């Protein structure tokens, strides 16, 4: 077994040289996760906004389900999708199993409840802040949705970053539905798992460093946004 300093050194070399395998894996990972975030945004933001502003029968139940789904075990999602997409499954004809599309679907299922739930909480707080004013102005709820979403944009962006963080770090579901096929469905997390088991620790470490960098960047960006937000509130107070 190599010593850890040489592993780190080789890992950094791979990154510095922009190793073609490494770049391909990173790009596919970003493509899958960003697409999942985009699809989730389209679904989750309107759902969260409606749940945050309208009172209707079953609203509490839906919010409860969304909150529960935030902790959805990825391997279970992977297994369910595997059963659906496998040849004998109900969606087998779509030939999605072991494709990046299946991985996008898995990640979308995992992060949509997170983004929807965070959106619902943000918009509900904001709506309560304005509720009496909206009544005084006679503003119908549907006419307040877009301005509320705009006012909440920084909080919503952090919700998207949280979704991206979860998606990019996900391994259980994508390894089941993607199959970790070289040059087809191999993403950072699944490659790290595979290469570690094979003993190819340099590539695994290089990908780990990139994954950590992405994760730290996302966290830093979220903190910067929150800082900017509280700064702005102080200025406006």
């Amino acid at each position, binding site marked *: 077994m190599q010593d850890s300093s040489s592993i780190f050194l080789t890992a950094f070399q791979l990154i510095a040289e922009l190793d073609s395998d490494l770049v391909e894996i990173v790009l596919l990972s970003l493509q899958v996760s960003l697409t999942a975030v985009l699809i989730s945004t389209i679904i989750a933001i309107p759902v969260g906004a409606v749940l945050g502003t309208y009172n209707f029968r079953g609203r509490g139940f839906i919010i409860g389900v969304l909150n529960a789904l935030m902790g959805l075990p990825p391997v279970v999602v992977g297994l369910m999708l595997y059963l659906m997409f496998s040849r004998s499954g109900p969606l087998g004809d779509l030939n999605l199993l072991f494709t990046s599309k299946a991985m996008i679907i898995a990640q979308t299922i995992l992060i949509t409840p997170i983004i929807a739930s965070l959106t619902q909480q943000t918009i509900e707080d904001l709506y309560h*802040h*304005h509720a*009496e*004013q909206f*009544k*005084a*102005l*006679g*503003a*119908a709820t549907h*006419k307040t949705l877009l*301005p509320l979403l*705009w*006012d909440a944009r920084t909080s919503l962006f952090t919700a998207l970053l949280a979704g991206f963080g979860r998606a990019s770090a996900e391994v259980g579901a994508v390894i089941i539905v993607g199959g970790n096929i070289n040059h087809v469905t191999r993403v950072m997390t699944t490659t790290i798992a595979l290469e570690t088991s094979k003993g190819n620790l340099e590539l695994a470490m290089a990908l780990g460093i990139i994954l950590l960098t992405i994760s730290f960047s996302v966290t830093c960006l979220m903190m910067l946004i929150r800082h900017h937000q509280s700064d702005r509130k102080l*200025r*406006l107070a």
Partner: protein
Amino acid sequence: MPNTNRHLPLTIKNLEYRHHRSTLIKQINLHVDSNGNSIILGHNGAGKSLLLKLLHGVINPTSGKIEWNGSIPASNQYWRTLLLQKPTFFQRSVQYNLEFVLHVAGMPVAQRKDLLQQALDICGLTDLAEHNANSLSGGQQQRLSLARAWVLQPDVLLLDEPTVALDPPASQVFENILYQFKQSHTKVLMTTHDLAQAKRLADEIIFMDKGEVLEQRDATEFFSAPDSVAAQNFLQGKLA
């Protein structure tokens, strides 16, 4: 602004509002016509703000009727508008906040630009049109609140202690703008516990105490010789 007030007189019959077993508004009967400003006076907790919210349809009465010129209109009627003690605004420009109200009320697009400019001019906000509404001072925010009312061209303007947090100069500016509404034949119904302000603005006083209307009289008469003991105590600054 309208020359005749289509929605007055306001007739309140046996109005009652109960909440958690307490009767907060007790059997109010009132007849308010379109002449001049009606100021609702009373201590904190007298039910002044509640009465305004009932009149605007923000909350529904437990029993009784509120009729505007003989009919009971639905809520979300833009001929009347309510100014809150603590108005809230979107984190957007002054202009956007006014445009939002125009949009909500479904004002004809062709009229919107003129109404907006008129409101900004009258309320002294033209230079602040691009400023974030939440960065304005308390006085400027209440003027923006009046501008929001102006763009709706209301027949009836309900104000819930709008100057409670303002200093005298800001209150003076506010009252000057309010005078413009009166000039435009908008009926003003305003709550306050500021006696000096009530004397300046009122044509008629509606005095409330513990959820009841104890007096409804011409302002000069009220201030010179109030009928009820509660009103006498209030004018003398005695505790209720």
